[in-house]
């Protein structure tokens, strides 16, 4: 055979199948570009020198990992879909006298072209967009270092390697396919009469159970720390449930609809229901994929968005002031603790830096964990019961008055109690091996000032106000006797707000740290919110960036799956609509029935995804609370906003594919 035949045949094939190959190549380009950008950012030396760079690096490695996995799965999936479409063409080559070896050669050239166009195009796009994406990322991270234009050789190398391997795998997959089948089979494979799907009661039941289970977990998980451990179980259940739902439940529902004669025998339902039922088997998995991808996009983007927008709240929570000094003191040495001297030192430092103190608060607290017993709390080093833990936190009425401005007069055995749970018991009993303490709750408080960073402990915490240092001391001794070397210390906290700028605040914090040597402290830490802000924005911005980046990638996948589905169905439906036209179906009616059919097929996954997100919302709030994001209204807005934005994109894809579909179906 002529030498240039195979390359030119392969090229022609790609062009003739443009409707299928163009989106495929575009996908390769986008994925390559995404992979390159993530890699380029991760390997950028300029980034490495920034504050919080380690977070960026971690995020990018995750992104890298997810994109690689995604690329492999998605490109293999698309490729197998493409090849199924081309059965007839390849069979024809075979029948017209090409050996399988020749076909294999054509396929090799095709893969080569796809790889060349896809990888080069992707790298070009990646290099061009890299700068833009970096700028966007830095904006999110609140970094303000401008960069020159750069090309990362490392990123190019790893992109080329990864995608060559992936396209190589698709080629192997195709070659294997060619080897296995015979041409007659290939030629007729499209005509094989598809049997109507049976109702799968068992699968439907499993679907309902798993989905219900997933939702149940999402709705009933009360503690944030438990949410982490069960979240993935819930996600898994929902994914399984979604697959079952689309494969089994949809068929059951459609069959019920068909049974109802009054609904079924109406022009627009008649064609739509039968059509959907007929192809539900092949459709179900595709729809489930779309639904799950959509849900992932929604959860990821709305979650990271809420996290990012809530960073300010988070900071306020973790850093009650611009400069926070935390000191741990052994209870035995509490008398040696020179509180006033430290206070002086802090105030002096600010003034020396020409700052004015706007707010100064200091207090001492004691906190330890206890096991929940029947109506009492048990403190012991070994876990006796499996009932879960709570954190108990105590401050004196003097400190409480300072923090809240409210005067309280408590008796020796009286406390004020605040807990997140609505436990309205009348007293607080604490049991240890040799001790038993009992306090009467004088009042249940509705709120409590922020104490330490206890909310980040992810455990249910009870806050109690006790009479004075003596009571605190008793509590200290009791827990010391129980926990021994693991016992808690007294914590002293000083919070300062100034009128200094962020740089000066950081400088002050550093200077205050030098007071570490003034006493025997178990821990001496000075934190500035300015520094924390950089860290948190780097982390949360990184999350958001990753969420949006992967969200876009998943949207692309969703769009592509939808597009391919519609097009291939269009070709299948063409014959059916021709017959119907001959039997007397007006063109207008065709358009309408196509419209409803596509609408249902299209928006069913979106609707289910929205329901998933709605159920996910509560557990997401719990997870976000771990990051001190407690502004539920903001999270709600983020979720609804993301959903709406996604729906708009989705609607546009719908309009586009519906048109393409109609064109295919009504073409002569």
């Amino acid at each position, binding site marked *: 055979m002529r030498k240039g035949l195979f390359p030119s045949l392969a090229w022609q094939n790609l062009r003739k199948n443009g409707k299928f190959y163009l989106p495929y190549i575009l996908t390769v380009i986008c994925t390559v570009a995404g992979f390159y950008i993530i890699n380029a950012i991760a390997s950028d030396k300029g980034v490495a020198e920034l504050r919080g760079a380690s977070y960026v690096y971690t995020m990018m490695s995750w992104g890298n990992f997810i994109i690689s996995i995604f690329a492999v799965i998605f490109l293999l999936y698309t490729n197998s879909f493409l090849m199924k479409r081309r059965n007839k063409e390849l069979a024809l080559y075979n029948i017209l006298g090409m050996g399988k070896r020749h076909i294999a050669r054509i396929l090799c050239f095709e893969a080569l072209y796809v790889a060349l166009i896809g990888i080069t195009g992707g790298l070009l796009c990646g290099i061009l967009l890299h700068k833009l994406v970096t700028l966007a990322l830095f904006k999110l991270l609140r970094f303000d270092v401008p960069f020159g234009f750069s090309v990362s050789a490392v990123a190019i190398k790893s992109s080329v390697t990864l995608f060559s391997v992936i396209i190589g795998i698709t080629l192997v997959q195709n070659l294997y396919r060619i080897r296995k089948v015979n041409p007659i089979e290939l030629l007729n494979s499209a005509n094989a*009469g*598809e*049997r*109507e799907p049976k109702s799968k009661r068992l699968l439907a039941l499993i679907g309902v159970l798993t989905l219900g289970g997933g939702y149940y977990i999402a709705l009933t998980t009360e503690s944030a720390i438990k949410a982490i451990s069960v979240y993935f179980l819930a996600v898994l259940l929902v994914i399984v449930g979604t697959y079952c739902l689309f494969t089994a439940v949809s068929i059951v529902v459609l069959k019920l609809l068909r049974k109802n*004669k*009054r609904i079924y*025998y*109406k*022009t627009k339902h*008649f064609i739509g229901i*039968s*059509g959907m*039922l*007929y192809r539900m088997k092949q459709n179900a998995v595709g729809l489930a994929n779309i639904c799950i991808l959509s849900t992932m996009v929604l959860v990821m983007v709305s979650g990271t968005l809420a996290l990012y927008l809530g960073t300010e709240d988070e900071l306020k929570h973790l850093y009650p002031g611009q400069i926070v000094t935390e000191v741990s003191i052994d209870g035995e040495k509490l008398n040696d603790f020179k509180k006033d001297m430290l206070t002086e030192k802090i105030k002096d430092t600010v003034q020396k830096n020409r700052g004015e103190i706007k707010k100064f608060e200091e207090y001492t607290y004691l906190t330890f964990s206890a096991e929940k017993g029947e109506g009492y709390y048990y403190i012991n080093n070994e876990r006796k019961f499996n009932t879960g833990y709570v954190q108990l936190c105590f401050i004196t009425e003097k400190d409480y008055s300072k923090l809240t401005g409210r005067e309280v007069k408590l008796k020796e055995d009286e406390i004020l109690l605040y807990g997140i749970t609505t436990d309205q018991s009348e007293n607080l009993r604490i049991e240890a091996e040799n001790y038993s303490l009992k306090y009467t709750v004088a009042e249940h408080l509705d709120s409590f000032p922020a104490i330490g960073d206890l909310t980040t402990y992810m455990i249910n915490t009870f806050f109690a106000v006790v009479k004075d240092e003596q009571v605190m001391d008793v509590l200290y001794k009791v827990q010391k006797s129980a926990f021994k070397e693991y016992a808690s210390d007294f914590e002293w906290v000083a919070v300062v707000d100034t009128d200094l700028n962020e740089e000066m605040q950081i400088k002050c914090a550093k200077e205050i740290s030098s007071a570490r040597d003034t006493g025997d402290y178990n821990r001496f830490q000075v934190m500035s919110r300015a520094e924390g802000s950089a860290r948190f924005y780097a982390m949360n911005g990184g999350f958001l960036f990753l969420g949006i980046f992967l969200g876009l990638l998943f949207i692309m996948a969703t769009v592509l799956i939808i597009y391919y589905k519609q097009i291939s169905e269009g070709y299948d439906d063409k014959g*059916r609509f021709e*017959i*119907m*036209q*001959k*039997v*007397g*179906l*007006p*063109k*207008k*009616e065709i358009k309408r029935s196509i419209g409803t059919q596509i609408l249902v097929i299209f928006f069913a996954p979106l609707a289910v995804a929205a329901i998933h997100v709605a159920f996910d919302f509560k557990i997401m709030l719990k997870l976000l609370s771990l990051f001190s994001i407690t502004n539920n209204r903001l999270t709600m807005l983020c979720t609804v906003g993301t959903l709406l934005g996604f729906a708009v994109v989705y609607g546009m894809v719908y309009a586009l594919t519906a048109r393409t579909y109609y064109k295919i179906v009504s073409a002569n």
Partner: protein
Amino acid sequence: MALLEVRNLKKVYTSRFGGNHVQALSDVNFTVEAGEYVSIMGESGSGKTTLLNILAALDKPTGGEVLLSGMNLANVKDMDIAAFRRDNIGFVFQDFNLLDTFSIKDNIFLPLVLAGKSYKEMEDRIKPLAAKLGITDILNKYPYEVSGGQKQRTAVCRALITNPQIILADEPTGSLDSKATDQLLNLFERINEDGQTILMVTHSVKAASHAKRVLFIKDGTVYHQIYRGNCSFDEMYQKISDTLTLLTTGGDRNA
């Protein structure tokens, strides 16, 4: 007045950029009376399918006109054409054109559903018809579950259920074995005896020999026609064969 009148029908296919002209029909004239059973024969490429498509209003003629019950097909608006086809014309195709997505029953109901008939009326209509065509037992099956003959009878049933003025059949026996072919031809005869007008395009001499009249098309015009009269099937078969021989051999010399 004749049920179907075809006058000076012309059809010229033009390639997209107007380069090539192919004359499919040059001048076709014939009429079909109500209750007739006419078959149209001709070689491949003689214009049979084009003719049928025009009669069915699936295609538009370049010249001439088609009147069904005195109504000119050219005057039917594009919007109403599907409804017109549905109400007046029944189709039977070579490859059955049944939809795999529907059960046999729903396939038959299709034109009625499109016409917006109530379920009760559809049920009333299908019962006697299905019994007559011998498909009552398979009504709830799917096209891929039944034999070719059964599929074609389903198609006939679908064509008849709208009580059309005329049945157009395009090579209805083309995909059937000889037994199923015999059954279908007998069926057509029975339907015709009940007063149904049938126009059938076919290659098969055997199929054509069942008709009351056979038209021969060659080079885009009606070349010849023979009436069955009182002939038996065998005599009719012989007559058609002879005519076809003449058409392919002697015909050339005369033309």
